[in-house]
């Protein structure tokens, strides 16, 4: 695949993630609950990881290109970890788990800082080959995305609504994208590499579509009629 096309794919992915970040921060700003911070952090880190990859592809002969690839690997894994943590804690009663989600987020941020330091201090910590670590990280990403897909799918099944089916689909697309990257990493299949980019862009576009529909889609009489009568009764 042409390098320019790959750079464009990374840039477009990064832009979509940063647009999504603007939407994803709203649940936290409205509810003030730190357990929803994982959404903006997750999409922010995901966007940054695509920026790193874009830079690594653009500056191929740059001295820090390997470091950028390592950073991309870590950042992307933390992005999915933050998203998975958010979904995990969203179903738990907030008063009982507040301490745990704070510890989890603090732990993830601490691990992120440590891993960045490890990348820039290779003489102290001998790193294994990038390809090997890349494969492990892809597997980790697939696990996180599979968890989120199952979580959102169960949420959809418990209260079927045509509006809620898109999100499990988007996370599944992102998961299959990671799987395709894994296949590409193992057997260098060109079609897997192209497919991975297509699946990733499709997943991100579905997420963008959902966010756009929620905030700018056709609105009922304002304030929305009948929104959660059952919620009002709880």
């Amino acid at each position: 695949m042409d390098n320019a096309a790959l750079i464009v794919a990374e840039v477009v992915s990064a832009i979509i993630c940063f647009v999504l970040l603007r939407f994803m921060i709203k649940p936290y700003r409205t509810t003030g609950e730190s357990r929803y911070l994982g959404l903006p952090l997750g999409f922010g880190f995901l966007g940054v990881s695509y920026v790193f990859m874009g830079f690594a592809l653009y500056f191929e002969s740059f001295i820090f290109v390997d470091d950028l690839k390592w950073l991309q690997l870590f950042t992307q894994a933390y992005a999915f970890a933050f998203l998975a943590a958010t979904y995990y804690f969203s179903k738990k009663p907030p008063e009982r788990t507040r301490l745990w989600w704070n510890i989890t987020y603090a732990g993830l941020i601490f691990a992120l800082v440590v891993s960045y330091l490890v990348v820039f201090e290779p003489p102290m910590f001998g790193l294994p080959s990038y390809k090997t670590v890349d494969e492990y990280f892809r597997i980790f990403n697939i696990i996180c995305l599979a968890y989120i897909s199952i979580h959102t799918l169960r949420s959809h099944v418990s209260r079927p609504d045509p509006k809620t089916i898109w999100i499990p689909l988007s996370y599944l697309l992102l998961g299959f994208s990671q799987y395709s990257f894994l296949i590409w990493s193992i057997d260098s299949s060109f079609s897997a590499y192209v497919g991975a980019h297509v699946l990733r862009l499709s997943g991100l576009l579905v997420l963008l579509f959902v966010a756009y529909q929620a905030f700018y889609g056709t609105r009922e009489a304002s304030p929305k009629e009948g929104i959660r009568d059952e919620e009002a009764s709880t």
Partner: protein
Amino acid sequence: MRKLPRRDKLKIYGDLLFILYSEAKKEKVVLTRVQLKTNVPFDRLKTYIADLKELGLILDEPSLKLTDKGKLYLSEYQTVLDFMKRMGLAYG
């Protein structure tokens, strides 16, 4: 019997505003009916109503009703809840 989840203050305010918005279509807002729908003790309901008045989200003249600021807040609050539902996130 299904155990009802605990609501934080913000969710109670949201529910209360929605109920007041729905009740405003009727001739007069009856507090007992609001209390029944919000499922909070009467003394606490009065405190919440006082808080919402102080925030400029509701008016008490001649009957309880949402101000424009209250309607805007409710609309935005419900949009975010709808977004969270679409995202598969639970709240409350």
